[in-house]
């Protein structure tokens, strides 16, 4: 991901649209991408669980920034709201409630590094394959800023079935969590 | 090395060892939280070691003695009239009430009795110091639950009570006014009318508290059913005062003790509450302030005339013997066990202070509660640090 970005930032040449000069966007993208990469690496290598969660926040914030850069404000802000504002906060909440420890923990998850790397590589391969398969050689049009209303219309018309399926899935997960937590 | 130094050192080592033991015991699992010795909720140097699971209390141990001043020992080198100066400082919010049981015990040993006028004024001052003490509790209960305003109202109205006490005794906090065989002085002119006005203010304050605190839903949710002490447990731990009356035990030494004070001359009621929770303790104290106003009002109307001092020798030597007198002080039962060997100074004074017993129930009552309730339960038990540590 980052090679074309760096290339674009340095040359001001956008390889996606073929020849347009978008210096500001590309520099911003490059900064975000590099930050995300570094944070992602630090996240899996740091020995402190809370620090890992904070690096995850940086990665997620970078993703939100890229969404906004692409004109998808709604998705970007929702990314912040849901992932940073709720999910990671719950991670941290859990960490604080269960461990209550300060400072680094030695060897957090070190013994499963191999498996984790494999899973990561697999996910990357699947996503890359899917993306390549979907777009192939198609020319990407310059993204118009998407409006919240359009997103809403799409969700409730074309994508209504996946939307409802996800809702039911989440509901099931919620009830399951309650049942597991109550333990009776 | 002499004996005293040896003993001190041994005591020090023992204290350190017990401290270490407690710490080791607590560190084993969960999180240990030290509430105090410096903590906003303990208004003094009480230390409660709390072992937590999340915010739930697994065990709570009060550690006292950070403010031990050795009054029992000091009393052995003070002449009888001088002792009142010391014991004044035990329950520093209702100081006059501390003097009364000691003086009564000394009077019992000397077989003198204060003249009726002195007894009536004594009772009035006794009840005034109860008001001065308890209305601060009423305000402080709010503070411990996070409502800061009531305590300022309490301080405002307490000032009037202190002014009245000062007008009689010359001291706001430490009156040192009670004498063996009577009182130091008579009432100043116009004091009775002024006091009646002050009582009205106190009654208004009680109404305000009822409006501002008692009826508040959050207050009720925070205190009702919290820190319930059943009557048997309370009695077993030696609770006294409003704490035990809030558990439904109808026991008040002002009515049932009958030593030296003239509460039996007036018409009043002992308030109890069946619930035994924090709210009950608060409510009973609120009613007791009102009741104290009624007692004082009736007493003010009927002070007999006459001297305020019986005939006692200038140099007081108390005949050999021993006496135990207890009275219903603002915080609960306070008793003095005085042993005399016919000297100028007492041979031995043992002080039974109310807060020491009241606080001893904390491990029992705090188990299984949450951290915020620790604070509110401690507040509702109402202890004065000086009264715990003496």
């Amino acid at each position, binding site marked *: 991901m980052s090679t074309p970005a760096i290339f674009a930032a340095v040359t001001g040449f956008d390889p996606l649209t073929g020849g347009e000069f978008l210096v500001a966007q590309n520099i911003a993208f490059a900064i975000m991408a590099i930050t995300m990469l570094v944070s992602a690496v630090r996240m899996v290598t740091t020995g402190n669980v809370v620090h890992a969660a904070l690096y995850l926040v940086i990665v997620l914030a970078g993703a939100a920034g890229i969404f906004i850069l692409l004109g998808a404000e709604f998705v970007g802000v929702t990314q912040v709201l849901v992932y940073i504002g709720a999910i990671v906060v*719950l991670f941290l909440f859990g960490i604080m409630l269960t461990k209550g420890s300060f*400072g680094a923990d030695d060897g957090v998850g070190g013994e499963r590094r191999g498996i984790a790397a494999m899973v990561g590589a697999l996910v990357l391969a699947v996503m890359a394959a899917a993306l390549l398969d979907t777009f192939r050689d198609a020319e990407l049009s310059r993204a118009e800023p998407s409006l919240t209303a359009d997103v809403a219309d799409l969700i409730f018309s074309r994508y209504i079935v996946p939307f409802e399926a996800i809702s039911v899935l989440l509901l099931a997960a919620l009830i399951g969590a309650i049942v597991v937590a109550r333990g009776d | 090395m002499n004996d005293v130094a040896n003993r001190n050192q041994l005591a020090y080592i023992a204290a350190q060892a017990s401290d270490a033991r407690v710490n080791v015991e607590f560190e084993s699992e969960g999180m240990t939280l030290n509430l105090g010795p410096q903590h906003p909720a303990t208004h003094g140097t009480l230390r409660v070691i709390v072992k937590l699971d999340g915010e739930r209390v697994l065990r709570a141990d009060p550690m006292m003695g950070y403010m031990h001043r050795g009054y029992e020992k000091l009393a052995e080198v003070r002449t009888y009239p001088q002792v009142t100066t010391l014991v004044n400082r035990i329950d520093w919010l209702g100081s006059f009430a501390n003097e009364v049981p000691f003086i009564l015990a000394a009077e019992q040993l000397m077989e003198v009795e204060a003249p009726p006028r002195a007894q009536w004024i004594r009772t009035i001052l006794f009840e005034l110091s109860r008001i001065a003490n308890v209305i601060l509790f009423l305000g402080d209960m709010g503070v411990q639950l996070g409502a800061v305003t009531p305590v300022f109202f309490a301080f405002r109205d307490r000032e009037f009570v202190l002014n009245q006490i000062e007008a009689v005794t010359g001291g706001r906090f430490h009156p040192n006014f009670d004498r063996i065989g009577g009182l130091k002085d008579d009432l100043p002119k116009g004091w009775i009318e002024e006091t009646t006005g002050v009582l009205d203010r106190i009654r208004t304050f009680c109404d305000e508290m009822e409006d501002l605190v008692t009826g508040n839903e959050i207050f009720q949710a925070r205190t009702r059913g919290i820190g319930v002490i059943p009557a048997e447990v309370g009695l*077993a731990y030696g609770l006294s005062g409003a704490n035990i009356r809030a558990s439904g035990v109808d026991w008040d030494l002002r009515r049932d003790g009958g030593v030296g004070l003239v509460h039996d001359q007036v018409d009043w009621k002992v308030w109890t509450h069946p619930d035994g929770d924090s709210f009950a303790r608060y409510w009973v104290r609120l009613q007791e302030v009102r009741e104290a106003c009624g007692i004082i009002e009736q007493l003010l109307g009927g002070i007999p005339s006459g001297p305020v001092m019986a005939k006692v020798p200038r140099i007081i030597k108390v005949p050999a013997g021993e006496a135990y007198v207890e009275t219903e002080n603002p915080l609960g039962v306070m008793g003095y066990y005085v042993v005399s060997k016919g000297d100028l100074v007492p041979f031995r004074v043992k002080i039974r202070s109310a807060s020491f017993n009241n606080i001893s129930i904390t491990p029992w009552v705090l188990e299984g509660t949450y951290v915020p309730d620790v604070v509110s339960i401690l507040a509702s038990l109402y202890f004065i640090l000086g009264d715990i540590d003496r």
Partner: protein
Amino acid sequence: MILAADPLLVDGIDLTVVLIVLLKAGVAFALLLVAVMLVIWFERKLISDMQNRIGPALAGPWGILQTLADGIKLFFKEDLLPTRADRVVFRLAPYLSIIPAFVAFAIVPVGGDFSDGGDGTVSMFGRSTFLQVADPPVGVLFFLALSAVAVYGVMLAGWSSGSKYPLLGSVRASAQMISYEAALGLAIATVFLSSGSLSTHDIVVGQSATTWNVLATGIVPFGIFLIAGTAELNRPPFDLVEAEQELVGGFHTEYSSIRFALFFLSEFMNMITMSAIAVTLFLGGPAGPIVTQRVAWVWPLFWFFLKVMAFLFTFVWLRATLPRFRYDQLMDLGWKVLIPAALGWFLLIATLDVAADLGWPTIPVVIVGVLVLWGGASLLSGAVRKAQAERLEEADRGADETAGSASGLGEA
């Protein structure tokens, strides 16, 4: 893009536009700082009056410079770093707390003429613009996202202090703010339904065209917003995060000097922002009668100020009056009362909207909707009661067991 709705930015960007944007941001920043200073003074003075005290009286006339004096004092105090603290995070936390507090105010329209169908544009250096720093199309979501980010300041401050009281404070903070954000978001969602937009500017314009949202959404969301907003601000009666009697200072126990001042400032800044958002969403923002035409531009600012002051007064009033909730009671209120109520009301308003679209008669729809809501509420409360009874029974059993094994007084 994020500023696209402002007429200032529609026809291209030149130096004047950039300068105007910078000017607006700068003025907003400076005004907020001054406002915070005054609000702190206002709160102290007002609460003193309510508590029979005088309050700050020495620095400046009526003690108005007291905050400045305190700030200078804090600035020159020693900045302590606890031994067990996580150095980086400990230093970072105050900024995570104060930056969202500043930024969130950017979307609030503070002035501009909205009366008689006016759209609130003012002209500034020959350009027309809105009196708000930014008007992103996702406006209110932006506010919610920032208030979600603000949790980090409190939470990390508590964790990184390496001390127990702050840790308890931050555990409380994270759970509390997350829970009440849900209720807050649902209350705001009702506003989206009635306004049909996420942009704060459009919401204000929509309210001036019809009626204020506080009425249009039927008061309930307004009440929920106020309660949840107070909780989100960690103001009394929801100030468990820094409950002095329990946790000494809560998450900022270990902080001193200017870092403490930043937390203090951000708390009051959030208070202002929350009041301003409440005014924008429910009370028509700067809308109000233009009394004199001579200085017409002053009136919207005045009305805005007045409405915000009403909220600030209420926050102080609450602090002076109410005791604090306990943690589990707070959670009960949030999850069992506010969130279901907000959700139910949201559904009702949505149904009414659909009914209006389809031309169904209003009154039967209202009756059916209320009946359904009532049914849902009684189901929920029944479930809650049953669960509670079961838990109590369980606890009793547990207590019996412990009492059986315990010795001596425990049995009684």
